[in-house]
Structures are given as structure tokens and as C-alpha cells.
């Protein structure tokens, strides 16, 4: 995410990170033998799904409005 400039790929990277978190959550839940880890993994998935949907919707809208080459083009909001 630090070096990729395609906004779509950045979203994908976020999903990857969330997955990594899920893996640790489930692994610790097994290690400690309690179910909370799995429950929170499920919640993470829910949040990730919502985040992906919203992010993609925003992305599609941006692409509709303008021809975007990379995420650095989106810097109008700078101070």
C-alpha cells in the first residue's frame, strides 16, 4: 500500500491486511481455546465487506467522473 499507486490495488491490500488480522485472531482463539477470536474474526469480515463495497462504489464514481491514472492524482484536497 505504501508503494502501489493504483487505488484499486490499495483497496485489495487493505483486504489482505484484514485477512492477516483474521488469521491471527482465529489462531489465538484456537491457542487459548476460547471463541471470542472467531467471533471477532466474523465481525472483521463484516466490516471488511462493508468497507470493500463502499470503497469500490467511491472508486467507480471517481473513475466515471475522470480518467484517473494513479492515486496521486487525487490530491485536490491538500491544504
Amino acid at each position, binding site marked *: 500500500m505504501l508503494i502501489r499507486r*493504483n487505488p484499486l490495488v490499495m483497496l*485489495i491490500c487493505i483486504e489482505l491486511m484484514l485477512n492477516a488480522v483474521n488469521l491471527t485472531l482465529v489462531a489465538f482463539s484456537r491457542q487459548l*481455546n476460547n471463541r471470542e477470536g472467531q467471533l471477532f474474526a466474523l465481525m472483521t*469480515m463484516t466490516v471488511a465487506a462493508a468497507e470493500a463495497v463502499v470503497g469500490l462504489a467511491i472508486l467507480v464514481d471517481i473513475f466515471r467522473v475522470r480518467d484517473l491514472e494513479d492515486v496521486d492524482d487525487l490530491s485536490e484536497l491538500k491544504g
Partner: protein
Amino acid sequence: MGPATIVFWLASAVALAGGLGVVLFKEPIRNVLSLVLVMLSLAVLFLLLSAQFVFAVQVIVYAGAVMVLFLFVITLLGPVREQGTVRLPWQIFISAVVIAAFAGFLVAMLRGVSYRTPDAADPIFGSVQSIGVGLFTDYLFPFELTSILLLVAAVGC
């Protein structure tokens, strides 16, 4: 080395390879497919961790729905290659330093950790019943919050 161990090493290897693919491929569609690979191998790992329900949800929600959405958007938008001027020349170097620091931190943290084999899971562990009871009793409030979040996402788009 039992079959479970073989499966574990295989799935971990595939997951790592997929992760690298996500970061390194240049075409977005390859990134997405690598991520699907990661997710599926993670699902296998979940199964090994006797988290059966999480496994099913991982496959259905992530691999089945979210990633299809990504694929859909990619096909909708067409190939977007990274090109154009580089505006942050120092970004890569600084990133490398930060990542190295983080990796060092991880190594430092994990050095002293001792591992143990977890207790045998009871048959109910990770099943739909156990998850359901947890969600609807102790964690009802976060559950409702996430459902509201989903509703907002569904209505807002």
C-alpha cells in the same frame, strides 16, 4: 508428520505466495486472483484450526462475494496500469526503512515466545452453535452494530 501438517505447510506456502502476488503483480486482475488464493488458503488454515464456521464464512463472504465484486469492478473499469510521473521520489526509501523497523520489531517481539500445543478442541468448538450462542448472548451489541453498518452500506450504495 501427519496429513494435517502437510496440509498446513502447503496452505501456508500458498498463502505467502499469494500475498507476494498481491503486492508484486502489475495487472490488477492478477492482484485480485492472488488475493483469492490467499483467502482460500487461509480458509484451509481456519479449517485446520477447527474454526469451521469461520471457514465457511470466509469462503462464502470473502471469496464468494467480496472478491467477485472486485473482479466485477476491474472488468468494468478495464485495465488500469500504473504509469505517469512519480511524485513522491522518497516514498519507496522511507517505506523500506519503516518496514524494516517493523520487521525488526516483530522479530524482537517473537524471539522470546514459547509455543505449546493447544488443548484438544471440544467438538462444539468453532461450530455454528457455539458461534451463534456467542453472537446472540455475550456479543449481541457488537453484532447489532455490525448489522447496522451493513445496512448503511447496503442502503448507501
